[in-house]
């Protein structure tokens, strides 16, 4: 049961991320600080299981963002993202 078999994608982190952000994160796009590729968050590779969300670039696998749900609230870090593009949300 390898890390690769277990990994999910940004779709599975959306419930958690939408506690932090007020928009549909899976259609937002991030530009990777590691390789410059821009990808929708729904396509980022998700690791971390119950420890937290570790979202990695689908192209270079470097960490783009991490989120942990702590006792009260969340801690989030996005050093691996150059910027996020957030399209208007429909409905």
């Amino acid at each position, binding site marked *: 049961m390898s*890390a690769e078999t277990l990994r999910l994608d940004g779709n599975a982190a959306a419930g958690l991320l939408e506690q932090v952000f007020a928009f549909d994160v899976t259609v937002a796009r991030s530009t990777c600080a590691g390789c410059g590729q821009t990808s929708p968050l729904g396509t980022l590779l998700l690791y*971390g*299981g119950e*420890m937290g969300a570790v979202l*990695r670039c689908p192209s270079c696998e470097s960490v783009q963002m991490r989120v*942990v749900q*702590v*006792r009260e609230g969340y801690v989030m870090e996005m050093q691996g993202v150059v910027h996020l593009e957030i399209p208007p949300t429909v409905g």
Partner: protein
Amino acid sequence: MSFISRGFKGRRRTASVAGRLPPGQYIVDGFPVLSAGPTPRTPLDRWDFSIVGQVDQARRWTWAEFLQLPAEEITRDIHCVTKWSKLDTTWKGVSVDTLLDGLETSADYVLAFCDGGYTTNLPLEDVTGGKAWIAYEYEGQSLEPEHGGPARLLVPHLYFWKSAKWVRGLELLPEDQPGFWESLGYHMYGDPWREQRYWGDE
């Protein structure tokens, strides 16, 4: 009281092991796999383990040299911060005391570093005095890559995220420096008996 799901109990067992479980933990069958990234696959002929940082002289062992070091068989309970525990897990590895034997340092802390970039921090005194190993066997078999093979840090008295998988060395430091999870909300020390899971937990 928040919503209760009628009849839901979950997978846990707690009954017959009272006293061995830290607060908030549950026994589970199996050995859950959790990773922050893809499984590293360093070939053994390129693997090494180093002691670096604030030391008089850095040390390094190749895999062949590492296997020559005196090793111990260890049986311990392990506790994950995600609440599962496993009792009486068996390992084989080299005590960190062996690796640090005779080393001169003024450092009080270590940062374990690993293939794939994972790090975790501990006080030096929590990896010495018979409390920590570099383990390369689990249950009598070579440690599988999914569980941190070829070798992982094993520090059973702290939450299991401190038992860093794919460990490649220890950096000795004068100050405590948060590792991968510690910089994201998890407790700097992580004592399961005081339930030190997150920042701010006493």
